[in-house]
């Protein structure tokens, strides 16, 4: 509790004690005086600011409305009620302040990735400086337990770093000399010397923080509705309050005090605070919670759309699949399997193509470079080399055609690599990308979350696409698409849809989609730029998680809107018909705020 809140609490206690004394007191004038003193103690600041604001022209401010309501109650001899209302208003305010403070704290805890200091070496001594003062190219030292303050490359030391705050990933990552490290990670064990690669404003941590903080600016429909609503709500209720006294009094002057009482209750209910705070708080809580899981959502509007989209489109390579090619199968016609692999490996020895890399990875045997002669690449077809005096060709069907060898019909998933000598096909190797471990689960979860259409787009051939969609449970696919055709394929989708890609070469698709989700974006500026939702690591399971968070946020926001409006409306009706009490009115004001805030805070917990 802050000092301000403790002072408020003391005033509440004194007032409560004075009121008890007043109730026990039987001498009218003393009783009356006690109520007045209690009222002044609890409400002096409200009344002072009400008058001050009145002269400044803010007629409809909360303090003013509360002052009129309570002084009015005094005027019609309802002094007990007047003090009670002011007391409850203050208790409510105290609760509200406490709840707001608490949620602010939880949110800032979610964003505890901002580094406070950077250690730089100067004249042989290590000094602490503000990360903002560190320049590109400077050498910083990060001790165990400290946050890495800026992005850079390790030049000395080895350690493990914890990326939990950025990615939600619990497993630490090992780093050594030459590795790039990202700001916001926590250094666990070794001392690291890091050469800084960009200034603080450009660093990952600053960008993430800015993104999360600015996300509040992209307002959702429900927030916009509330802002518009509250603009009209207060004046309308105040006008109604005036009419409620004015009209009946003209006809029945004797009913004035009862009419005034009803109007005063209207004034108490007229503050839109509960609505104004609780809806954005729910959204901010949702965004904050998501960012803790390594899911950055760029605005409440995206959170809202994400909860509603029923179509998901996935890019294949690197998104649903690991993007690393591995040897799936080796088929030989004459040679021994290992010999075929060794020959292929030797022929591909000097190539850095992903396919060559996968063969080299599979072939465990150390190749003697001296045995490879005349290695050359045949563009678009494959490679050839002379190995141990024998010419070997490795490549696709086009290569076989140029050699004049008949191409057999092969039905395999993935890329087929033929191995041959000058006359004869020796065998073939099937290489394909592997499906991410969590792809199948993710698709199943998406379906259970109500996503009806899950599409896959790929540049790969049809048979591969079919295999992958069957394996993962995806509902439809479009294969053999050129990059520009992918965007056209997205054009054909009428419904609201999300596109999930790795962000590296599908920026146009990410932008085209209602919601662009970039995977594995940690450290990739382009992906963070183009997407609406950024998943820091490459776990597909974060997608259903993001949807769950967005649906929960939306639910809470809706609950708050309906709850606050319903209570206010009911209390207004009761007040107008004479059934309401001042207590109910105060509850409809501050009580509703507190409950709505507490409800919004559920978003911050799992």
């Amino acid at each position, binding site marked *: 509790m802050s000092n*301000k809140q403790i002072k408020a609490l003391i005033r509440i206690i004194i007032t409560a004690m004075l009121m008890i004394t007043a109730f026990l007191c039987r001498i009218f004038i003393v009783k009356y005086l006690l109520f007045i003193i209690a009222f002044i103690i609890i409400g002096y600041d409200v009344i002072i*600011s009400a008058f001050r604001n009145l002269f400044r022209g803010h007629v409809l*401010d*909360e303090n003013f409305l509360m002052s009129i309501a309570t002084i009015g109650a005094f005027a019609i001899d309802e002094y007990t009620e007047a003090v009670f209302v002011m007391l409850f208003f203050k208790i409510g305010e105290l609760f509200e302040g406490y709840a707001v403070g608490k949620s602010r704290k939880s949110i800032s805890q979610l964003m505890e990735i901002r580094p406070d200091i950077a250690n730089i070496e100067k004249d042989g001594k290590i000094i602490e400086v503000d990360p903002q003062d560190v320049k590109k190219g400077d050498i910083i030292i990060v001790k165990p337990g400290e946050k890495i303050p800026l992005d850079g490359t390790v030049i000395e030391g080895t350690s493990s770093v914890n990326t939990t705050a950025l990615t939600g990933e619990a497993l630490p990552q090992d780093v050594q000399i030459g590795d790039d490290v990202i700001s916001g990670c926590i250094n666990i064990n070794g001392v690291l010397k890091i050469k800084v690669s960009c200034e603080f404003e450009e660093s990952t941590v600053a960008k993430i923080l800015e993104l999360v903080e600015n996300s*509040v600016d992209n307002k959702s429909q429900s927030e916009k509705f509330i802002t518009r609503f509250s603009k009209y709500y207060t004046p309308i209720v105040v006008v109604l309050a005036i009419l409620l006294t004015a009209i009946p009094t003209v006809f029945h002057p004797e009913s004035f005090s009862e009419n005034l009482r009803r109007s005063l209750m209207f004034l108490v209910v007229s503050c839109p605070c509960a609505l*104004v*705070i609780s809806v*954005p708080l729910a959204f901010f809580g949702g965004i904050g919670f998501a960012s803790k899981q390594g899911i950055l959502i760029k605005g409440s509007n995206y959170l809202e759309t994400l909860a509603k989209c029923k179509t998901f489109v996935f890019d294949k390579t690197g998104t649903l699949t690991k993007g690393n090619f591995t040897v799936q199968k080796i088929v030989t016609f004459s040679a021994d399997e290992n010999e075929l692999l060794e020959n292929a490996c030797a022929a591909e020895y000097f190539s850095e193509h992903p396919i060559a890399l996968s063969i080299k990875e599979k072939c465990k045997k150390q190749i003697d470079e001296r045995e490879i002669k005349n290695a050359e690449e045949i563009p678009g077809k494959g490679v050839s080399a002379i190995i141990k005096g024998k010419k070997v060709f490795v490549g696709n069907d086009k290569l076989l055609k140029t050699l004049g060898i008949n191409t057999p019909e092969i039905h395999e998933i993935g890329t087929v690599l033929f191995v041959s000598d000058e006359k004869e096909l020796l065998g073939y190797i099937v290489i394909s990308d592997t499906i991410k471990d969590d792809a199948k689960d993710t698709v199943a979860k998406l379906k259970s979350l109500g996503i009806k259409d899950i599409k896959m787009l790929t540049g790969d051939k049809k048979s591969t696409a079919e295999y992958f969609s069957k394996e993962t449970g995806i509902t439809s696919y479009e294969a053999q698409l050129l990059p520009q055709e992918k965007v056209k394929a997205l054009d054909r989708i009428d419904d609201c849809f999300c596109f999930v890609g790795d962000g590296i070469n599908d920026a146009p698709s990410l932008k085209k989609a209602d919601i662009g989700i970039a995977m594995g974006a940690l450290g990739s500026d382009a992906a963070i730029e183009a997407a609406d939702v950024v998943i820091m690591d490459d776990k597909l399971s974060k997608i259903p998680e993001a949807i769950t968070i967005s649906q929960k946020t939306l639910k809470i926001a809706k609950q708050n809107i309906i709850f606050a409006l319903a209570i206010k409306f009911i209390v207004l009706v009761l007040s107008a018909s004479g059934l309401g009490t001042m207590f109910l009115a105060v509850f409809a004001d501050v009580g509703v705020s507190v409950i709505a805030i507490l409800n919004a805070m559920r978003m911050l917990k799992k």
Partner: protein
Amino acid sequence: MKKTYRMQNLDCADCAAKMENKINEIDGVTSAKISFIMQKLTIEADENDIERIIREAQKICKKFEPDCKIIGG
């Protein structure tokens, strides 16, 4: 130029929204935003004007919440 300031004793969400509207009306302000949750004021304006704008913004904030202070970024 864009500058961010911290706000102290910002207690009422409705007031924050009103302050934001009024600050946006100050001469020379390109855009102003108040984040009630982050207790932050972000002002976009010409560098030469910013001091005057902050002084005026401070006055506006005081009108809505007497305790509210704008402190350095």
